C-alpha cells in the first residue's frame, strides 16, 4: 500500500523492520497531537497495526519552550500484532530543547533522533534548563542524531507566500511530518487530503501546510540527510471495514448504538471535566439520533438531570472523572434506591483531588464498587482498549435497562484519547433489547419484581393508571410506599444484592488467554489490557504456563473466576493504582495474589510486566 507520492524512485537502501515506535514531542503549541494523529493515519493506510499514546499537559497554552509545556504523541506501527503504544522509542522527533529534555530517556541506544537545530538557541536552552547545548557536548553521541533545519527550511518553502513569521512556524510540524513520512516510507496522500478538508475555509493555511509537508518529504528524499529509509510491511489484518477510533468517541458511539437498540432517546447530563468532556462534545453533535445533551451547572445537576430523564423513560447518562464521581455519589445512591437505569461514566485520571488531570490512573475502582452511603451495590463494567469502549458502553446500557439499575462504566484518560483501528461491527450483529414500558395497571406495584432479573417495572409518567411515587426513603418490598419496618429494610438491602447476583447470568464464560491451568495467572482490568497481553505472550512464546484474564465485569465478578484462579500456582494483578482489584480478589477468593503497581500517570511498559512475571516464575 505504501507508495511514493512524488514519483521519484528512492535512491537509497530500504531497511525492513518488524515494528517501529516513534514519538513526536514539542511545545504544546507545536501541533504535536495533529502530527501524531496524521502519522497514525498514514501508518493505517500503509497497512500496519498501530497503537497510539497521546500525552499532553493540562495547561492549554503553557508558556512557550518550558518543560511543563511539552506535548507528545507516540505511535507504535507494526507488521505483527500490536497491543500497546510501545515501550522504548526507536525514533524521537523533537521540536525544541524542552521536548528533548523530557523525552530523551525513553529513546533506545542508537535510536533515531530528529531535531530542529535552530531551536537550540540560548533562550530556549535556558527555558529547558540546559546549561550546555546538548548538540555540542557529545551527550547525543549514543543516538543517530539528525539536526534538521526544520524552521529554516519551512520558512524557505513558504517564502513567496509573504506570510507573517507566526504562520510560518505553525507549519513546522507538517515539515517534520514530511521528513519522517519519507524516512519510514509512509504515504503522505492521507495527510494531504486531511489538510485539504481541514483548512478548506482557509486556503492560505492549506497551501502553507501542503508546501511544508511536501517540502519535508522532498528534503529527506533529495538530500543526503539519511543513509537509508525504513519500511514496516503491512500486517496480516482480519478482513473488514476499519476506522481509527479513540476511546471517548467509541464510548459516545456505544451509547448511541445501545439507545437505538433500546428504542429510546439519550439524555446526557454532564459538567465539563478532563478527560471526559469529549464524550459530551461528541454526543452534542448527534441530536438527530434523539440525543439530548445538557451541560449542567455542576456535576450534581448533571447526574440529577440524567436521573430525572430516566424516570421519564430516557437512557440517562452522565460522564465525568474522579472528582466528579464524588460529587455525584449521593445521586447515584438515590438511583440505586429508586432502581432506575442510569449510566455513570468515570474516565479515570490520576488523583487525589485535581491530581494530574490529563494522565490516566485506575484508582477509582474501589470508589466505583463501594463509594456510596449505605449498602448500594451496583454493576461496574470496565473497557480494556479504545475500541472496546464501544462495547463496554453498549453493555452498560443493556444491563442498566434490563435490570433497572444504575451501572458504573470505567475507562481512563489513556483509553479516552488513545486510538486504535476498529473493525466495525455490523449493526445487525449487535444485540437487540427493545425496551417495553409497563402500561397495564392490572396488578401493578412499583416494586413488584421480575423473577428472572429482579428488575422492577419501568412505569413512565404519562401512563394512565400507574401514578406512583418513588423516593429515597426506604420502601415497602412490594408497594414501594414508605416503610421503616425493620425486617422490610433488611429484605430490601438483600434483594438489591440478589439483583447483582442475578446479573452474573449475563457474563459469558471467562476467556483465558493461555493454558487453562499452570504456573501463573495474570489478572487485569481496564487499559492495562495491551501491556499485559503483550507481556504474557512473550512467555507463552517460550512455552511457559502463563495465562491472562482481563475482567470486563468488576461487579458482579464472573461466576467462574474463583474456580479458574484455583487452577494456578500464582496470581499476579498489575494495576495503575496501589492494588484495588488485588484487594477485592484477595477478599473474595482468599487467594494470595500479588500486585504490580505503577502510579505514574502512564500506562505500563511491556517490559515492566515481563520483568515481574519473570521474577515470579523464578521464585
Amino acid at each position, binding site marked *: 500500500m505504501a507508495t511514493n507520492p512524488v514519483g521519484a524512485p528512492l535512491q537509497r537502501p530500504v531497511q525492513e523492520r518488524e515494528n517501529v515506535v516513534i514519538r513526536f514531542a514539542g511545545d504544546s503549541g507545536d501541533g504535536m497531537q495533529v502530527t501524531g494523529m496524521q502519522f497514525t493515519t498514514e501508518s493505517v493506510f500503509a497497512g500496519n497495526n498501530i497503537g497510539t499514546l497521546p500525552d499532553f499537559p493540562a495547561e492549554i497554552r503553557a508558556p512557550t519552550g518550558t518543560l511543563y509545556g511539552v506535548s507528545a504523541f507516540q505511535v507504535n506501527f507494526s507488521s505483527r500484532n500490536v497491543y500497546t503504544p510501545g515501550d522504548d522509542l526507536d525514533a524521537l522527533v523533537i521540536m525544541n530543547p524542552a521536548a528533548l529534555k523530557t523525552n530523551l530517556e525513553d529513546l533506545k541506544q542508537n535510536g533515531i533522533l530528529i531535531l530542529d537545530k535552530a531551536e537550540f538557541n540560548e533562550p530556549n536552552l535556558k527555558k529547558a534548563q540546559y546549561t550546555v547545548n546538548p548538540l555540542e557536548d557529545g551527550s547525543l553521541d549514543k543516538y543517530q542524531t539528525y539536526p534538521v533545519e526544520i524552521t529554516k527550511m519551512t520558512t524557505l518553502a513558504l517564502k513567496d507566500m509573504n506570510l507573517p513569521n507566526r504562520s510560518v512556524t505553525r507549519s513546522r510540524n507538517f515539515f517534520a511530518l514530511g521528513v519522517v513520512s519519507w524516512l519510514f516510507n509512509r504515504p503522505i496522500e492521507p495527510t494531504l487530503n486531511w489538510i485539504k478538508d481541514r483548512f478548506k475555509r482557509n486556503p492560505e493555511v492549506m497551501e502553507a501546510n501542503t508546501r511544508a509537508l511536501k517540502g519535508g518529504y522532498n528534503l529527506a528524499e533529495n538530500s543526503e540527510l539519511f543513509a537509508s529509509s525504513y519500511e514496516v510491511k503491512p500486517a496480516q489484518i482480519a478482513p473488514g471495514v476499519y476506522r481509527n477510533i479513540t476511546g471517548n468517541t467509541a464510548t459516545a458511539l456505544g451509547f448511541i448504538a445501545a439507545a437505538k437498540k433500546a428504542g429510546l432517546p439519550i439524555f446526557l447530563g454532564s459538567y465539563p471535566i478532563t478527560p471526559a468532556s469529549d464524550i459530551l462534545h461528541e454526543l452534542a453533535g448527534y441530536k*438527530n439520533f434523539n440525543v439530548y445533551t445538557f451541560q449542567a451547572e455542576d456535576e450534581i445537576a448533571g447526574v440529577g438531570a440524567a436521573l430525572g430523564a430516566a424516570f421519564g423513560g430516557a437512557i440517562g447518562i452522565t460522564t465525568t472523572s474522579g472528582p466528579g464521581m464524588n460529587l455525584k455519589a449521593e445521586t447515584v445512591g438515590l438511583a440505586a434506591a429508586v432502581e432506575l437505569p442510569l449510566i455513570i461514566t468515570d474516565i479515570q485520571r490520576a488523583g487525589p483531588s485535581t491530581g494530574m488531570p490529563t494522565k490516566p490512573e485506575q484508582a477509582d475502582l474501589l470508589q466505583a464498587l463501594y463509594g456510596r452511603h449505605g449498602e448500594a451495590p451496583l454493576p461496574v463494567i470496565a473497557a480494556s482498549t479504545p475500541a472496546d469502549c464501544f462495547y463496554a458502553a453498549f453493555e452498560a446500557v443493556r444491563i442498566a435497562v434490563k435490570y433497572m439499575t444504575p451501572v458504573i462504566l470505567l475507562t481512563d484518560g489513556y483509553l479516552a484519547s488513545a486510538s486504535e483501528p476498529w473493525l466495525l461491527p455490523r449493526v445487525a450483529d449487535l444485540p437487540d433489547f427493545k425496551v417495553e414500558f409497563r402500561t397495564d395497571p392490572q396488578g401493578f406495584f412499583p416494586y413488584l419484581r421480575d423473577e428472572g432479573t429482579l428488575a422492577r417495572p419501568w412505569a413512565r409518567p404519562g401512563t394512565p393508571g400507574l401514578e406512583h411515587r418513588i423516593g429515597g426513603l426506604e420502601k415497602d418490598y412490594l408497594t414501594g410506599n414508605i416503610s421503616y419496618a425493620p425486617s422490610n429494610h433488611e429484605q430490601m438491602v438483600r434483594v438489591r444484592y440478589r439483583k447483582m447476583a442475578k446479573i452474573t447470568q449475563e457474563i459469558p464464560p471467562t476467556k483465558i488467554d493461555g493454558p487453562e491451568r499452570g504456573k501463573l495467572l495474570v489478572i487485569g482490568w481496564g487499559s492495562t489490557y495491551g501491556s499485559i497481553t503483550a507481556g504474557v505472550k512473550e512467555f507463552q512464546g517460550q512455552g511457559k504456563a502463563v495465562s491472562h484474564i482481563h475482567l470486563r465485569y468488576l461487579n458482579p465478578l464472573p461466576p467462574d473466576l474463583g474456580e479458574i484462579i484455583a487452577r494456578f500456582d500464582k496470581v499476579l494483578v498489575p494495576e495503575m493504582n496501589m492494588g484495588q482489584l488485588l484487594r477485592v480478589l484477595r477478599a473474595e477468593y482468599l487467594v494470595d495474589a500479588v500486585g504490580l503497581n505503577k502510579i505514574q500517570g502512564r500506562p505500563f511498559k511491556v517490559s515492566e510486566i515481563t520483568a515481574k512475571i519473570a521474577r515470579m516464575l523464578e521464585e
Partner: protein
Amino acid sequence: MSTASAAKLTRKDFVSDQDVRWCPGCGDYAILAQVQKVFPELGVPKENVVFISGIGCSSRFPYYMNTYGFHSIHGRAPAIATGLKVSRPDLMVWVVTGDGDGLSIGGNHLMHALRRNVDLKILLFNNRIYGLTKGQYSPTSELGKVTKSTPVGSADHPLNPLLLALGVDATFIARTIDVEAKHQQDIIKRAAEHKGATFVEILQNCNVYNDGAFASLTDKETKANTQLVLEHGKPMIFGKNKDRGIRLKGLTPEVVTLGNGIGVSDLLVHDETDPVLGFLLSRMTPPAFPMPIGVIRVTEKPTFDALMNHQIQDAMEKSGAGDLEKLLHQGDVWTVK
C-alpha cells in the same frame, strides 16, 4: 395534553392513599389542600402531572398527591426536574421545595432552573426555619435568630427569595401565604398557566419550631394593615379602611395615608410586567412596609425545554433520523480484504 379525561376529575382524584405525616397544625396541610383543590380545574390528566421534591418537611409533598412523584435528595429537585421536563415536554412538572432545600443546599440548582426558564412550577415553602432537622435557623431566618445551633443568635443576614428570582430574570415570580386559601389558589392557577419557570414563595407557618413567624401577616386583626395585595393595573392600596397606599418618592417607595391632598392617583399602580417595580416590591418588608403578596413579575421568553427540543427536531429535519450504520462508518474508514 388531552383534557377529556381530566374534565371529570375532582379534588379526591388528587389525594393519594398515604397518611399525611406533617405535624398537626403545620401550614403544609393548608397548602396541600389548596393544590388538591385547584388541580381538577387545570384540565390536565393526572397521569401527566409529576411532583418532584428534595428533602425537608415540604418535600414530603409528592407522597400525598395521587400523581407521579419523585422525592429525591436535598436541594437537587430542580436539576432532576430539568432532566425530566426537557426529555418529556408533554408532562407538567412541579417542584416543591423549602427555604433550606431550595435556598441553602440547593440554591445553585434553583438559580439555574430559573435562569434557563425551564417550564417548571416551583413552589417554595418559606417557614424561615429548619423543621425536619428540628429547629436550626435557615437562610431566610432573621439576623440574630436564636435556635439550637445559634444559642446567642445567628450572625447571618437573611436571603430574600424574590430578589434571587428577579436577579436571574425568572419569568414568573409570586408570593402568597399558607392560610390565605383563595389567594393561594389564584396564584397556583396563574403559575400552572404560565409557560416557563414559575417561582412561588409561600409563606408558611412552622408551628413547632418557628410558630408565629408570619403572625402579623395572618392575624385577622392586623393583616389588612400588614398585607399589600397586588393586582395588576390597580393602585397599591391597603389598610383596614383602605386608606393607606404606596407612593414613589424619587426612586424610593413610601407608605402614605390617603387624604390631606394625597389621592389614589398619586399611588403606584401595579404592573406585573415591570421588573423595576418588581424589584421595589421585593425589597418592601415589614415592619416598615406592608408585605406585598400576589404576582410580583411576569414576562415571556422561550423555555429551555422548548429550545432543546427544537434543536433535536431541526437536526432530524436537516439530517434525517440517525442512521447507525452510517454513523459507525463516518470519517476515514478503510477496507481490509
